[in-house]
Structures are given as C-alpha cells and as structure tokens.
C-alpha cells in the first residue's frame, strides 16, 4: 500500500510538472518536461549507464570504507581511555570543518580519478558513523554493566557481549545517515574535478544546455540514493529483529 501511495504521489507531481511546462511554454533548455527527460533517459542510456557505474562504485566503496573506519574509531575510542582523551577534542573540532571545502584539496592530492571521490564520500560518512556508534557504546544500561561485573566478566567481554550489541541500534541510525550522505560526497567530489561520473555528466550537460540530460542524470542519482537507503534500512531491520520498530510503517489508517 505504501508503494502504491508513493507511486500515485509521484505520478501526480510528474503530471503537474508536465502541465506547467506545456502551459507556460518554457524552452527545453531552461526546464524540460518529464517526457523530455524520459526521452533523454532512453536516448542517452549507454552514456548514463557508463557514468552511473563510476558514481555507484565511488558511493559503495566510500560507504564500505567509511563505515569500517568509523566503526573502528568508535570501538577504539570506547575501549581506550587514552584514545578518548587525545582524540575526542580532535574529532569534535574536525566536525566543525565543512568537509566539502576539502574537496579541491582531495582532488589535488589524489587526482582526477576515483580515489578523490571515494575519499570525499569516506569523509562525509566517517563522522556520523563514528559519533553514532560511540554514543551508543557509551549509553549502555548501567544495570547490565553491574550484572556483568557480578558475573565476573572482563572489560573486553563486556564490550563484545553487552556494550556492542546494545549500541547496534544507534550504529544503525548512523548507517542510515551514511547511506543518505554517501551519494552527496561522491557527486561533490566529481563536481570539483573529474572526467567521469554522474556529477561530471551533469556539469558537462549544463554547460552545453542539455538540461534534459542533466535531469536524466539527476534521476539516476536519485534512484541510486533511494535504493541504497532502502537496502541499508532493510539490512538493519533484518539484523536487529529485537529492536522495537520506531518507524510508523504500519500506520493504521
């Protein structure tokens, strides 16, 4: 039912869009209608697939690396007092820096290829994942820790068997944010300097007044983002079956 409702909403919006374009007669190079975009999607499919593959690879690599690095740092911070003392201020300050401002530097250092885009995606993913998991690890129900202590558990055992599983829902929220921002990181990286990818294609099409192609690239990117978010969300739900569902998915109406 949810899917049907979403499809109907999308259809209505698309119809409105087409209506505005047809009624006002806006030229195609300013605002193409959805039919023109669909046409571009079909005509330029090979091009879109080629550049889409680049961007998708960057997003996925960035996601995997960013989540792995973020998870590892959160675990390190939670396990070692020294790490917390020395690295926490750094982490907090670095979060205040707009990461996107680093994009030109990354391109300078890592080149026009995929590496700089993956690095960009890793940077935007790293902080939400680290803070989400670290927060989760710090907020363990104190009663569980007491119980584990009377049971003679070592610190490592408590981290592994109690604090980490208890932090997984928080980690899941971080993962959802990561999935949502990963495409942004990759595309910003491509805008700053690249020779392939959907971000590159959008800039290129914009410069040549191929606005229908720009919209087509945007549509592909949108599909990536939604699919990625849905996949991550489904994965989290499957992995944490004990977690009471806070999403009002089964709204009774």
């Amino acid at each position, binding site marked *: 039912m949810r899917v049907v409702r979403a499809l109907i909403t999308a259809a209505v919006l698309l119809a409105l869009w087409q209506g505005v374009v047809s009624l006002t007669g806006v030229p195609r190079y300013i605002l193409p209608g959805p039919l023109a975009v669909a046409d571009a999607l079909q005509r330029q499919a090979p091009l879109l697939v080629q550049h889409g593959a680049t961007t998708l690879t960057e997003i996925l690599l960035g996601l995997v690396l960013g989540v792995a690095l973020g998870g590892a740092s959160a675990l390190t911070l939670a396990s070692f007092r020294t790490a917390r003392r020395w690295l926490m201020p750094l982490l907090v300050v670095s979060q205040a820096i707009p990461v996107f401002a680093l994009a030109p530097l990354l391109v300078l250092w890592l080149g026009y290829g995929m590496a700089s885009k993956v690095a960009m995606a890793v940077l935007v993913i790293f902080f939400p994942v680290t803070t989400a998991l670290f927060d989760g690890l710090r907020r363990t129900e104190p009663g*569980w820790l*007491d*119980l584990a202590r*009377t049971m003679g558990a070592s610190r490592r055992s*408590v981290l592994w*068997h*109690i604090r980490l599983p*208890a932090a997984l829902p928080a980690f899941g929220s971080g993962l959802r944010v990561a999935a949502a921002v990963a495409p942004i990181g990759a595309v910003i990286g491509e805008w700053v300097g690249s020779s392939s990818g959907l971000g590159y294609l959008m800039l290129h099409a914009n410069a040549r007044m191929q606005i229908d192609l720009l919209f087509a690239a945007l549509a592909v990117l949108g599909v990536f983002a939604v699919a990625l978010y849905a996949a991550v969300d489904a994965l989290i739900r499957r992995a944490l079956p004990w977690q009471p569902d806070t999403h009002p998915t089964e709204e009774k109406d």
Partner: protein
Amino acid sequence: MNAPELPNAVRPNALAPAPLSVTVTGARLTYGGTELFADLSLTVEAGVTTGLLGPSGVGKTTLLRMVAGLADPEPPTVIEARDGAPLHGRVAYMAQQDLLLPWLTVLDNVLLGARLRHERRSPDLVARARALLEQVGLAGRETDRPATLSGGQRQRVAIARTLMEDKPLVLMDEPFSALDALTRLRLQDVAASALAGRTVLMITHDPLEALRLGHRIHVMTGRPATVGPALEPPGRIPRAVDDPALLALQAELLRRLAG
C-alpha cells in the same frame, strides 16, 4: 497461594556451594555531606533468607551494592565472609529490573554468565539452564526473545539466571517491586522454592514481601540509619498471605518502619 513443591533436582548437589554466612561491621555511608548510616552492623546467616526492610533513601541499596562489590565500601566498613575468603566472584545479584538482554533468547539470557566468562557451553550447562527455566515455569519458552514475555515472566527468567550462577550468596534488590500485586505474590512463591537452602540477602520496602520470604527480618530506619534486631517469624516459607500471625507481624513491622 502456596506454590506446589518443586523438585529440587535442578541443583547439581555435588557442586552446590556450601551456604555462606556474611557479616557487615562498621558500615558507613555519606552522601552529599550527610551521613546516611555509620557503624552499622548486619549478619547474613548461612542457608536462610535475610530480609532487610527499609524505606526508600535509607541507603539499603548502596549497602547491598557494597556487599556485591559494585560500590566501594566507605572506611571503616568491613564486609567479610565467615570462611575468611574474599566475597568477589561468589555473589549472584538480582536487581529490581530484570536486566534481560533483548537480543538474546530466554535460554541465552539464563546462560549469560557462562557467555561473559567465555565458558564452554557444555550440554550439561544447557541442560541445567533448561531445568531451571522449567522450575520457574517457563518450559517451552527457551528460544523466545524477552520482548515477547510479560513482566512477571521476564522476572522469572531473571530468577533462573541468578540461580544459574549458583553462587554461595544471593543478593536481591527489591526483585519484585516493579510487578503487579498478584504477579508479585506468585513470583515470591517461585523464588521461595527456588532459593531454598541458600544464603540470601533481600532488600525490600514491602513488609509483606519480607514476611513471606524472610527467615530473619531486619528493619533499617532512621538517619543515620540503624539496623534493628532480627525478627524471626514462625512458619514455613513462603508464608501464606492470609496467615493472621503474618498480618499481625506486618502491623508490627509497619510500626517499626514508621518509628
């Protein structure tokens, strides 16, 4: 309201720890500058349930946590076992909340201690956990997650988990206070039969609970708080709720609590 006599086959008699007697002397606790108690003494006799009854805020939970090794005793507090060996590692602790881990099944929750200590999950161990679950009336729920259980059932799992630890001293901090009245009475019956023969120190603010389960009952009141002489009500445990003697004692305990 008396529980049917449950078979005591659950305890591995060869390995059962000898009941331990514990004494607390010179106990002192200050909180935010005020002295909650000083020079307080308490003896927990071996093999019986000692009920420590007191109003909220009297410091009884902190006293229990000191015995459990969860709070550092304030000097000159001395907590010692009769056999002279340290208490560390010989205590099973049951709190007001069931503290079940939501991601583990009921059976795995009962086996939590073994998991945390990286002990091998031998068939014997699992069989004992299953037997304990049966004893507390939860046979067949082994693979369920805690979220599917009622509050009373969850606390039953907590009892099984406490017994699984099989420690010489069992500490209970208002274990049934979060439950409704009827469930509480049922759980007291379950606990009484399950804990028979063990050294138990149970904290409660409910005179009826202390009277149903305690062989010896101390009242802890005042500021700084003192522990009164032990009251040893007659009759088998769990004592019947409608016993007139028990009701008279309840009135007496309420008087002591108020005084």
